[in-house]
């Protein structure tokens, strides 16, 4: 079963399509990295799932039920754009209000539970406006976690966080995933996403252009060798004649799909070039994303 299943979702703003016939499948228990350029429709999709926007057409199902079902909505937590807290109220009061809204019986225990998950046990008395950006994001997640949701929707939760903030957020999300919460997370910071996501969805122009699991991506991951050499231009032409996929990346040359790096070195030396630096690597999410977006993906 999918935690989120979207078919033919369309949404327009003043005649401009933000989403156009979008399909999406988020498996139960996944950490689904939702990626795309600015304005590609990530936030619009998330807002539609959360019921903040009214769809033009299409179908959204959460755990097999219509997304407007009050029962299933009770199992959704979200952090969209900001935490949605009252700035002059304390962290505790903000969480208490959401706990009351959700009809949670042992509210104090529940608030302490979520504060512990987001590592903010000692900050409950702080006014929300006095919290740092990282803390605010974590409070937003704590709000979303109240009532033990099955699905968490997070819109750019690591944007603007420092290294430590990102690390804490990553740990929190992995912990949540371990207890069976499905997480849909959009982010531009692909390196961070790569560390935690189990599935990816790539959106462009309001359409889902690729959905792939991290396992599949691992299998498809291409090897590439980064070569730094003195005469880059001559060397590039030379390598292009010898190998199928050779690209220039700033001051380096990337040679794709060659497992034996030594052969490249031998070839260059034979042709009178001195290799300054050579490094073998596998393409990660960032490279895969660039390939997809540039239409150079190798099937």
């Amino acid at each position, binding site marked *: *079963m999918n935690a989120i299943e979207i078919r033919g979702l369309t949404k327009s703003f003043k005649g401009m399509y933000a989403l156009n016939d979008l399909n999406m499948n988020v*498996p*139960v*228990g996944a950490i689904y990295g939702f990626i795309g350029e600015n304005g590609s429709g990530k936030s619009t999709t998330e*807002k539609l799932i*959360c*019921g*903040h*926007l*009214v769809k033009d057409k299409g179908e959204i199902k959460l*755990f*097999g*039920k219509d997304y407007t*079902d*009050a*029962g*299933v*909505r*009770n*199992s*959704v*937590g*979200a952090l*969209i*754009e*900001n*935490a*949605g*807290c*009252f*700035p*002059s*109220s304390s962290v505790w*009061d903000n969480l*208490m*209000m*959401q706990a*009351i*809204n*959700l*009809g949670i019986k042992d509210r104090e225990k529940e608030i302490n539970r979520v504060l512990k998950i987001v590592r903010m046990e000692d900050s409950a008395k702080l006014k929300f406006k006095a919290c740092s950006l990282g803390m605010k994001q974590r409070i937003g997640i704590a*709000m*979303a976690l109240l*009532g033990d949701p*099955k699905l968490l*929707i997070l819109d750019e939760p690591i944007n603007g966080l420092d290294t430590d903030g990102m690390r804490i957020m990553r740990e929190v999300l992995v912990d949540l995933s371990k207890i069976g919460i499905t997480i849909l997370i959009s982010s531009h910071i692909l390196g961070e996403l790569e560390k935690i996501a189990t599935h990816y969805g790539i959106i462009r122009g309001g359409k889902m252009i690729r959905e792939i699991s991290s396992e599949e991506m691992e299998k498809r991951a291409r090897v590439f060798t980064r070569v730094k050499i003195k005469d880059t231009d001559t060397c590039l032409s030379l390598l292009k004649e010898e190998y199928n996929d050779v690209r220039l990346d700033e001051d380096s040359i990337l040679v794709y799909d060659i497992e034996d790096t030594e052969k490249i070195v031998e070839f260059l030396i034979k042709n009178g070039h001195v290799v300054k630096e050579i490094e073998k690597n596998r393409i990660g999410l960032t490279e895969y994303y660039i390939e997809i977006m540039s239409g150079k993906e190798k099937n």
Partner: protein
Amino acid sequence: MDKSYEFEKPTFIKRIKGMLGVDFYRLFHTPVFYIFLIISAIIPAMVLGMTGTTSPNGEITPLYTNTWQIIASNEPMYAVKSISEYANMNMVFIFGGIMISIFIGHDYKSGYVKQLFTTHPKKQDYMISKTLLGTFSMACMCITYLLGGFVAGLICGYSMDVNFGSLVCAILGKIIMSLGWASLYTFLNVLFRKFFGISIASSFFLGTGILIIGVGSVVGNSTMLNLFLYGSSVYACLSSNFVTIIVCLVCSLMWALIYNLIGTLVLSKCDVY
């Protein structure tokens, strides 16, 4: 991992209880409500104690002759001629409008409304809860207004003569009218949710009852004006009786229903943002 999930659907009562719980928690934990209660007590005291006309020989004649005139006029006066005919407990509905605008404005500005609608509350729950919250707030303001006016009347030495039954009916009538006014303000704030300035200005403008005062000055003191919120609010005067309460109840409920239905429709058909 192919397992089916069962989700407990919250009942209407549970949803409303949750929404009201949040709204009242917020009401009692933020200073806005208490500030408005104090304003509601101070304003009648100031109006009663500080208004008057100065005669050519410099003698000051108070505008009010009786303490209870600060609660309501002696007769239903839809078209007013002086401040003393206008400035009475109906002013609470202006304060209430501003307070509701601040409350709903903060819901949207802080993004809290997103947290609400992500979970189980429906749009109608929001309308109903905010209406009831506004009603309660304005009812409380009516009471502090009464206390403020009474104390000021005592201090200024104004007459306390009144038909007690009519006074009670007038106050009850105005408290009942809070429901209709609260629903109007909730509707206006939902309609102009993206524009806080317009929300607060429209609440203030309609709260003054200026439209009905204008119509009243054209058509005279017609009982037809009781169909409107300001009309019925004026109808609750110092000559009120049981019928007044019935009129206020019908008018207030009718408008509360209308505004809640339209407000729910607006929220359901439009994006939250």
